């Protein structure tokens, strides 16, 4: 298809553009990795010596470890709740007809359109009113709002691929609603649920604005990074960055693989009979 189509510019121009954006996207990530192993305090092109001393320093830093503990608690709880909500709503939408159905979906897609600073102020004001500002719980509740739309989009796409008759057929054959869900819908949606959990975990792990405003003294890893950005050059940021990149990139790639493999097997099933 593409071979006989002539392009307005020679192929190398388009490919140079492609390379350029990937350099812009991945150079900052790669530089964090390289500089995290440089022994020099000031990152520059001529690295004198490689060492792992900044890693040792990070792992000995009680403040960072405390932040890491907070981050993991928050991300894990967020992933759990956001995935549950992000599956329940599209499932209800898929399975039932009810009043206000479209409004629920619209409501759930609103948070990403609100600037994160604005949302942070709203959350901070809200949690101060109810006396929960400065707690890990408040960050979790707010992160669920931010992360659920991602989970919902992923689960909804997957549920749309399941013919609706399967579940009703199972129930006509005597399955209870619970059995139909467990035996028909859940196995089909499992890859999407897994991917949603990974993505929501990554979203929460990375979120800095709400955590900064609402968290008070309870710092998460991105908030410690934000505080360092305001201060002096600090080589330990490269270590934290490298670890953060490794964690979130693996989560996102794992999620993408899960979704990709499930759509492929879905297509094969359609073709084979």
């Amino acid at each position, binding site marked *: 298809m593409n071979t006989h189509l002539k392009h307005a510019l020679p192929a190398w121009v388009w490919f140079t553009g492609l390379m350029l954006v990937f350099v*812009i996207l991945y150079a*900052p990530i790669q530089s964090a990795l390289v500089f995290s192993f440089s022994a020099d305090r000031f990152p520059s092109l001529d690295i004198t010596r490689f060492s792992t001393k900044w890693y040792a320093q990070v792992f000995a830093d009680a403040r960072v470890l405390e932040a890491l503990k907070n981050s993991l608690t928050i991300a894990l709880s967020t992933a759990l709740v956001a995935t549950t909500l992000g599956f329940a709503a599209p499932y209800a939408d898929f399975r039932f007809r009810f009043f206000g159905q479209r409004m629920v979906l619209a409501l759930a897609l609103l948070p990403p359109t609100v*600037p994160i600073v604005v949302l942070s102020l709203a959350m901070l004001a809200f949690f101060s009113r109810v006396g929960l500002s400065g707690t890990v719980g408040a960050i979790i509740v707010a992160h669920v709002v931010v992360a659920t739309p991602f989970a919902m989009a992923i689960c909804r796409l997957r549920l749309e691929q399941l013919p609706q008759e399967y579940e009703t057929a199972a129930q006509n054959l005597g399955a209870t609603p619970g059995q139909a869900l467990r035996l028909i819908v859940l196995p089909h949606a499992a890859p999407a649920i897994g991917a949603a959990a990974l993505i929501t975990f990554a979203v929460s792990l990375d979120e800095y604005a709400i955590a900064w405003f609402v968290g008070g003294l309870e710092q998460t890893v991105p908030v410690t990074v934000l505080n360092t950005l305001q201060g002096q050059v600090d080589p330990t940021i490269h270590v934290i960055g490298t670890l953060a990149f490794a964690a979130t990139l693996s989560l996102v790639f794992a999620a993408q693989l899960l979704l990709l493999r499930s759509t492929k097997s879905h297509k094969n099933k359609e073709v084979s009979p």
Partner: protein
Amino acid sequence: MSVLSAKLGLRRRGWFALWAAPLPVWFALFFLGPMLLLIAMSFWSVQNYRLTPDFSLSAWTYVLSLDFLWSTFWRSYGLSLLSAVLVSLLAFPASYAMAFLISPARRLTFLGLALAPFFTSYLVRIYSLQVFLGEGGVLPQLFHSVGLSGASLLNSYTALFLGHATLTLPVVLVLQTLALGNVDRTEMSAAVNLGARPLQVLRHIILPAARPGLTLGVLFAFLLSYAEFVSATYLGGGVFQTLPILLTDLIRGGQQWPRAAVVSLLMMAVLLLTSLVTVAWAYRQKGN
């Protein structure tokens, strides 16, 4: 019998509510609640350094009469619009390559790689850029070695733009590639068979067909850049005072939350208006 069926109906309703209720309840409490509070708070007053529920227009009149608010407002708007257009232009060749020059199987891999950075530590990537561009950093060093000035590149629009690109490129690349990938190939071949030159195919077939997606790319880049305060602070270095910076200062500064709420609502109104106009334009019928 009727008791049994009533029980059954109740059970069915319970089963339905179990799935339909959680998300609306959570979002009503913890999303609509805070957002409505934000609106209410813009009418509250600060008395003896204490936030007091009230119906007062003092925060509104104060904020709206500030000269620097309006200059900040237009600067924010202009800078993010400029970045949105430039990022879209920067992304276009790459999206074109992914849509037309790469096989569909590989396209997914590239799209995955392009999207992944969106979910990885934005702050650390900004720190990396700070190190790259700052005095004695990688780029000034490179420039110096080829005989150019080795001065710091921070606190310039270039630095701010790179920050915006870091944030928005993944989204723009995905939207553009999907838009270009959906362009009708038979229409393109037909145009070629009728003697259209490649540039004409691009201008008269590809760009009009992909317009909604390309426009959405500009819109999302604008929305993200407009709401962003990290690049503006740490790469633009305060040279570019933007609304989100003003807002963070107001919030962190203490008790002037009603004023912060007013600025927030202004931002939301502008975003909403811009989105509506852009979407209407993107999906407008040909020939209108």
